[in-house]
């Protein structure tokens, strides 16, 4: 009678396999840990947020007869006052962010080897890259704001032959201009600002990871998975920048 009450025994010939102890959710169906899976799903949702912004920006830009030329708008360089270097600063920013992403990948690989000093070294370089990128972005923003650009007003106007002229220069030369689309400032500050916020959060995450690495927290835990999770986020920030770079500066 006791044998019949056992839920694994259906009859005297059929016995179900013993239950495993996966009720706690420790199972990893894709051989990816719970934390990494959830970071991936968060990044997927974040990708939808950014693509929503970028596609809306594309629709607005398509609906205009004229749009300021990024080669003229983004030609300022720090320490080179009055010198026009089209796409100069933004190319440096792209290089910095991609290199920073590479450094964090190197930190993740050193983490797989349990090389505490290696993780700390590459993470530190990654953080430096992030901070340098934010510095460049702050300079670019303040440069545009100094010129009079706001989210609701665009100082770059269309000249007689469709060329891009800053309003102050056009007034000085008495060139007739028609006003540029106000959404230029709105979309630029909105989308690069949202990206910059992500970079700032990523820098904070990497600093936390660096402190915990130096304290030996991950070494004692036996794995550097937290560096991997923060790393995934950091690469995503780089990924978004590649598209922001394309749609705001190249096209």
């Amino acid at each position, binding site marked *: 009678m006791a044998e019949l009450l056992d839920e694994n025994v259906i009859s005297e010939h059929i016995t179900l396999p013993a239950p495993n102890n996966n009720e706690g959710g420790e199972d990893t169906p894709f051989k990816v840990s719970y934390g990494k899976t959830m970071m991936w799903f968060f990044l997927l949702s974040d990708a939808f947020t950014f693509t929503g912004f970028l596609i809306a920006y594309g629709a*607005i830009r398509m609906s205009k007869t004229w749009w300021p030329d990024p080669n003229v708008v983004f030609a300022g360089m720090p320490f080179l006052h009055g010198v026009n270097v089209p*796409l100069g600063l933004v*190319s440096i920013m792209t290089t910095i962010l991609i290199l920073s992403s590479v450094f964090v990948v190197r930190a993740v690989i050193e983490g797989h080897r349990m090389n505490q000093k290696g993780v700390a070294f590459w993470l530190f370089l990654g953080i430096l890259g992030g901070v340098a990128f934010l510095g460049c972005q702050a300079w670019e923003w303040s440069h545009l704001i100094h010129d009079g650009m706001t989210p609701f007003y665009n100082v770059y106007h269309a000249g007689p032959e469709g060329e891009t002229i800053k309003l102050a220069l056009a007034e000085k030369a008495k060139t007739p201009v028609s006003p540029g689309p106000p959404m230029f400032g709105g979309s630029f500050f909105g989308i690069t600002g949202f990206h910059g916020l992500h970079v700032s959060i990523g820098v904070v995450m990497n600093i936390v990871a660096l402190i915990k690495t130096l304290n030996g927290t991950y070494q004692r835990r036996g794995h550097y998975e937290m560096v991997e999770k923060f790393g995934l986020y950091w*690469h995503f920030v780089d990924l978004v920048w590649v598209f922001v*770079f394309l749609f705001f500066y190249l096209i």
Partner: protein
Amino acid sequence: MSSHLDDATYHKQVAAIWRATIIIAVVTVFEVGLALSHYFFFYHHPKAIINVFMVLATLMKAFYIIAEFMHLKYEYRSFIIILTLPLIFLVWLIIALSVEGTFWLRLIQ
């Protein structure tokens, strides 16, 4: 604490990362070169063809960032599909808002 990663795999992974970095760097130089050559030499010609090339180059960069840096290439195939399949909705959004954007343009012309 023992090492989790043997030396051969380690060197292979590091080489793969630097290879991806060089590809991304070359593609970026190519993109910036295209944009600047249009600005300096072909300013009064339409930019549409160059834009197509730049979008393709950016998608290539995105592939290397996701596959190599984010290590997705080495995950299970079902996991890759779960993460990339939802992006199909973006195709719809791009088409819908392109149509709407050109309609707004016709309204003001």
